């Protein structure tokens, strides 16, 4: 996801010199081509995330479109007040690019994980949140971001996420319906979509065919649309994020507001996961987010 992001942004920036890529001294091997081709649109602001974020806001206030790139925990928690005051409150169109969000930096440990970021970003005023599941959704989100003059949060996986989409997406913010089975709904945001597809494969083997919905644009509107598509059926939400204040939590809020009739269950990263060391896959499994655990949870929900 991060490589396709860097490639797509380079293509755009070659045609639009207002697009800048700012890194907090990270992205070795990923941002090299951008730096080589467009040195005037590339800034390494060192290991100083707070100043980097305010600086990006200052650039955006004068017509630039900075994309501020770092490992997910750094351009978020480390500089939250700069995002809140200088980016969001001032409505400066900075895009915070959080790489390896969720548990993407697995063995690097909890300091390098970002499992509370959606909860925090959705509380920020004027912030639009994008959380693609694969490289096709990533390009779609980048195009949506540039079509709007708004603060944005782009939550990316670290890399190697399998494609769950087969064709490019449109130009409007919408959910992506991957499969339209009759037996309830499995929905997700972000790279966990690949696990959902594997779980769906297991469910199909026993004759259960859920509708599968990817939600790359997180907003009140897309979540309302999700509930309309689900149309009273049971819903299982998946996220590589804590259950507190995340995707599933957002669905429950909108469902309560709308009086949604179907049952909703959620799977996310458990609090205890930060006591564990392991790869992204190991940690997801520990949190009950393996294809087998997702499949069992869905069967439990349907029964």
């Amino acid at each position, binding site marked *: 996801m991060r490589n396709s992001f860097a490639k797509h942004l380079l293509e755009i920036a070659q045609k639009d010199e207002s697009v800048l890529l700012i890194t907090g001294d990270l992205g070795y091997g990923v941002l090299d081509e951008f730096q080589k081709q467009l040195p005037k649109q590339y800034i390494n602001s*060192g290991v100083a995330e707070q100043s980097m*974020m305010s600086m990006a806001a*200052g*650039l955006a206030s*004068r017509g630039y479109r900075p994309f501020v790139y770092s490992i997910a925990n750094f351009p978020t928690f480390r500089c939250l007040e700069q995002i809140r*005051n200088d980016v969001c409150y001032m409505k400066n169109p900075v895009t915070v690019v959080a790489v390896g969000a969720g548990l993407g930096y697995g063995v690097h440990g909890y300091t390098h994980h970002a499992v509370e970021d959606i909860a925090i970003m959705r509380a920020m005023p004027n912030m639009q949140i994008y959380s693609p599941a694969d490289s096709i959704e990533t390009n779609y989100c980048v195009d949506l971001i540039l079509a709007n003059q708004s603060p944005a949060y782009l939550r990316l996986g670290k890399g190697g996420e399998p494609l769950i989409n087969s064709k490019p997406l449109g130009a409007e913010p919408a959910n992506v319906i991957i499969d339209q089975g009759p037996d309830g709904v499995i929905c997700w945001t972000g790279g966990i979509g690949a696990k959902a597809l594997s779980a769906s494969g297991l469910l199909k083997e026993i004759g259960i065919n859920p509708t599968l919905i990817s939600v790359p644009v997180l907003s009140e509107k897309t979540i309302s649309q999700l509930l309309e598509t689900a149309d009273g059926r049971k819903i299982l939400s998946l996220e590589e994020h804590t259950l507190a204040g995340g995707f599933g939590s957002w669905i429950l809020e909108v469902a309560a507001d709308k009086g949604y009739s179907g049952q909703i269950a959620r799977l996310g990263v458990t609090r205890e996961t930060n006591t564990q060391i392991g790869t992204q896959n190991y940690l997801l499994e520990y949190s009950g987010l393996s294809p087998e655990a997702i499949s069992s949870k869905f069967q439990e929900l349907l029964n």
Partner: protein
Amino acid sequence: MTHSAQSSHVGSALSVVDILAVLYSGSAKVTPETSDSPDRDCVIFSKGHAASALYAVLALKGFYPLSLLEGFCADGGQFGGHITHHGKPGVELSTGSLGHGLPYGLGVALSQKKRGSSARTFVVMSDGECDEGTTWESALLAHQFGLDNLTVIIDRNRIQSLTFTEDTVALEPFADKWRAFNWSVRTVDGHSYEELSDALENQDRPLCIIAETTKGKGVSFMENKVLWHYRPPSSQDLEAALLELKSANT
């Protein structure tokens, strides 16, 4: 303003107001007519707690009607106790949390350089604000990016929220610190219009002007008193202060 609002930082406003008066009287190339122009000079007021000083100077310079100041800290008013930008031409950034103005100014100054504009960026900071880590991050970055169009003016009144700066987190040798970060440094009397405006001319790298000021300047019972960092003036205080200021002007 600070009397009617009973919300203050009057001492901080009085120490910085001469700096603002000089900036908006020609040193910074920005007027009500050019407040949206991409080539305007940018003045960022980072010590947002001294809001009343900036609000008053901008009103007197015609950025908005003086009568709007009646809404300072009033229910439904437009002027918060810390700087808010909504609906106020000339206010570049909402501030109040310290340490935001300088890094934001880095971005604006960098944008001016990228566009090949000759416009400058001025950041007005407090001395207590130099406790913030972003000040020194930004001091490093300004040199790295060659921002010879960035000027910091520090209101060196030597008093922060609870006591004197040197008894809290000592800043001295202050000028040496900035020089060590490869900035030009000029130390001036922060209440001298002549010294300030001279110091604001000509720079070939990031420039830090240390403006030696007096907290509560011009009102004898407020001068150099920690108490007046925040205290709102009573009716009697207001009357006494105005009398002193009037007699000083005659």
